[in-house]
């Protein structure tokens, strides 16, 4: 073999080797870049889904609480007093439990996962994705635990609300109706008539003022100020009406408003 042939062979093998390893490198790097983009997109989609589920969960909780509390209160209405409060609280708890249990996929928000596999490149990008994933899962954990706390707090809040109610005339009035010939149905009608159909009119029934003052039927929490706030609320617009003393209500949710996911229920109600 002549020198020219050997040199040509040497040059060719080097060039081909460099080209093939370069192509492999490009292929690997491009593939990993694509995987990173996919992982990023998956995370964003899962975050959005968790946020949607949190919103739905909050709504269901509020509805479950309201219905459960109303049902529990009505059942206990004839007896009045503390049993009314216990009934309302148990109903509220049962309603929230049912709302949570009936939620598709359970009441818990699912953790997110980027699904990013092992790789050789883009250490910084991978760290960013992992960091985002961890942060999101931490928020989800917090949101899940605060959801349970909220439900329990709601139960306690409802108990306190109705224990106050039991001492007022409203309870006696509806209790008497419930105990009469009309029964609970009549009492409910009257209650709705007084508190819902007379919406906008100033009413002095104890139940409306007390129910209205319970800060957030759709999911508030019992802060330290809630009890004193209950005393000061002016409620004249029905269940969800305004008119309450905002300074005593506290700032449910506003401190978390930066991130709906953290407690979308609060962020939806707060401010």
């Amino acid at each position, binding site marked *: 073999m002549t020198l020219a042939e*050997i040199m040509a062979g040497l040059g060719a093998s080097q060039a081909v080797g460099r080209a093939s390893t370069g192509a492999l490198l490009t292929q690997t790097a491009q593939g990993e870049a694509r995987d990173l983009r996919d992982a990023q997109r998956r995370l964003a989609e899962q975050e959005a889904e968790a946020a949607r589920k949190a919103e739905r969960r909050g709504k269901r909780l509020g509805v479950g609480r309201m219905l459960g509390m109303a049902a529990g209160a009505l059942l206990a209405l004839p007896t009045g007093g503390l049993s009314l409060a216990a009934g309302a609280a148990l109903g509220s708890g049962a309603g929230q439990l049912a709302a949570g249990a009936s939620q598709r996929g359970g009441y818990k928000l699912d953790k997110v996962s*980027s699904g990013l596999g092992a790789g050789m*490149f883009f250490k910084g990008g991978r760290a960013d994705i992992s960091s985002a994933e961890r942060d999101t899962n931490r928020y989800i954990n917090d949101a899940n635990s605060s959801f349970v706390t909220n439900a329990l707090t709601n139960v306690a809040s409802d108990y306190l609300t109705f224990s106050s109610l039991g001492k007022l005339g409203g309870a006696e009035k509806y209790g008497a109706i419930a105990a009469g010939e009309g029964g609970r149905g009549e009492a409910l009608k009257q209650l709705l008539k007084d508190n819902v159909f007379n919406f906008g009119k100033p009413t002095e029934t104890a139940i409306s003022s007390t129910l209205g003052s319970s800060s957030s039927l759709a999911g508030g929490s019992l802060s330290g100020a809630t009890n004193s706030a209950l005393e000061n609320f002016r409620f004249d617009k029905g269940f969800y009406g305004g008119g309450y003393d905002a300074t005593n209500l506290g700032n449910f949710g506003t401190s978390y408003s930066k991130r709906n996911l953290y407690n979308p229920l609060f962020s939806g109600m707060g401010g």
Partner: protein
Amino acid sequence: MSFEELLKQAGLGDYSQYFSQDPTKISSALGLKGEQATQFGQFFQPFGQEQFMAAQKEIGERQATRTGFLERDYSSGLEQLQGQYQTASTGLGQQLGQATSQIGQAAGQAGFSGSGATAKQIAESRKVAGQSLQDIMQRRSSQLSSMELERERGLYGIEQQRGTEMAGLTGTLQNYLQGIFGRGERLYGLDPTGGGTMNPGESGYAGISGTGAQGIAGQLGQLT
């Protein structure tokens, strides 16, 4: 001459680790470590040492062949010159002998044998022959110098040719090293991870050192 010696001769002795036949060692030389070095080795093509050595051997053989041709030409020229000299010397001697003989015969026939005129003629003939011989020797010496010079020029040319071929061969070393460093730059530009230890577990990321729960994410995961 070994490959390492050739590298040193080319002034690349400090870069011998990049010419390893094990790609892992090449990536290690670029600062990639452990598992990382093993994985990134696939992006490096080892240098064709065998071909390089074959080329180097071929260059040596070519030089030897050229030198052989030159020496043979030179020897042949020398023999030719020697022959010419011998022929000329012999011819001159014969001519001188014939001339002396003719002068003696002529002198004998004329009855002047042993006279001073005859001796003078013979001396004159010898003088002419001596001058001719001197001319022949000078010419021989001149031709010999010319042949010697030609030989040295030839040897110089052969050495130059060898240098050019070796330069071409050294160029392949340079190209290879440039390719390796270029590849290294590209790898580092792609922000390499810890090789195969990346991204297992929930998030996929285990940090730059450690696998799974031992990685950064794993450790953080345990804390949360």
